[in-house]
């Protein structure tokens, strides 16, 4: 196994863990963290898998940079909504999940 493939595989494991957390937890903060873990996992797959056996590839690296910004924006938006929701309802979970 090349190191690039290993990175990709770690990404796979992270994705699995993230998915597990995302579907199991109901606390919104935990879900958000799980989403970020899953996101990191997919970035690792994106970079690692493409470079396996072919050496450095700038394209996926650039894609990941774009992806990170998008993930940051999404996370920030989620946090804003989450905090607003917490403020008006006093809940850290969604209505049916309480």
């Amino acid at each position, binding site marked *: 196994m090349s190191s690039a493939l290993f990175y990709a595989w770690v990404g796979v494991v992270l994705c699995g863990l993230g998915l597990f957390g995302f579907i199991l937890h109901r606390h919104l903060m935990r879900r958000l963290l799980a*989403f970020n873990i899953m996101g990191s996992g*997919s970035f690792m797959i994106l970079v690692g898998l493409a470079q396996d056996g072919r050496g450095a590839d700038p394209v996926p690296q650039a894609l990941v940079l774009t992806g990170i910004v998008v993930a940051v924006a999404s996370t920030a938006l989620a946090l804003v*909504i989450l905090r607003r929701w917490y403020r008006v309802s006093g809940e850290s979970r969604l209505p049916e999940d309480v």
Partner: protein
Amino acid sequence: MSVALPLPWLIVVPLGGAMASFLVPERWRVRLGLAVLPVMWLVTLAVLGDLAAHGVQVHALGGWSAPLGITLLADGLALGMVALTTLVFSLCAVHAASHAAEKGHNGEIGFLWPLLWFLVAALNSIWLSADIFNLYVGLELLGLTAVGLVALTGSAEALAAAMRYLLAALLGSLCYLLGVALLYAAGGSLALGDLGTIAGSGATARVALALMTLGLILKTALFPLHAWLPPAHGGALAPVSALLSALVVKASLYILIRLWLALDPDVATAAAANLLGALGAGAVLWGGWMAWRQTKLKYLVAYSTVAQIGYLFLFFPLVTGTSTIAGGLAWDGTLLMLISHALAKAGMFLAAGNLVLAMGSPLIADLSGISRFRPLSLFSFGLAGVSLMGLPPSGGFTAKWLLLQSALHSGQWWWVVVLIVGGLLSAAYVFKVLRHSFVEGPKRDHFNSPPMAMELAALALAAAGMGVGLAAQSPLTWMRIGSPFGVGG
């Protein structure tokens, strides 16, 4: 020979509109929005004219052609969606603007306009993009805008709905991104047109397809992943609901369709297609049933969207492994269904918004007596309902007719049952509303009256849904330009 208008204008104009309306003081935003609308129309019509004159258009962004750069592709389907977006958006914008004008201010929804323009930019970027990673960015752009529009009123209900929507959108786009990562590793290119070269025998493309499909159907709110949709669409402002139901859920479906057609036929298996068809059938039945059970008018319309989305997913079993004729019929039928649902549903949401405004109550039971006071809004609601029920001569009917013919042609008669039972269910929930509004209950003479422009916007959309069926040939002829099923029909 005239020079074709560059495609990016379709994105530059709304993006510029978004930034401009973000910059200007609040009191100018409505006027600015109405001023940009004609520009949007000009650009749309010019590009449509180019399509008619020169056929399929390709624009290599930055001068770098695929696979190095990103290309925009404007075939009949893409520009059909662009035109649909412009039409639906204009009428929703008129609705929103006259609502704001009537209230005398738009303080509480001050950032509505920048978000609306971002929505158009995001939609157009998705319709035109021919690059799977760019589609991911477009999806995120669209998702966050839509979530923002849902949350806009800031009430607890809106925030909860937005949060649930956001979670679904995030999970969906992550799964899509995972698929992109796998496809890039397997094919070495991100261009949609290059996907067909990936060998279908390996597991990578198949796993990628499964991930992307699931992510996209979560964003499309296909049963049983539809749970986020009713609160989000049912709780938002009327023009926002209209745009979300008419266009936003279609964007992820559009990507899915592009993806399935681009991949090697070996990858898109019949089992997967039938699974999608079965989920679509479930959506038609469950969504229709739930719509009928609703007590709030806008939730009824929202569940109706859940049901109508189901029809669109019959596309997959009807084109996978069937004859070209059946596939072509399904292609035509699905596109027509997509357009007519977009128009009818937008009209229905606007009409429902007007009715709710007039009643001062969100409940269907409070509609009694409205038939005499707001006949025009009710008429628009009914007209849109005709299209959703699939009664002739609406677009819904023509689309269903094509889908039925396709199902019979490919020998999959069970989808016929779904289509017909779905029509009966939609009749049940549409007439539920009409029945309540024809009842003359306790004397009520206090009804608010929304401005005329709001009623006319709803009517225009509902009538357009009707017109699409009446003149079904011409939109289909347009949208067949560059179609994988050829121009015959």
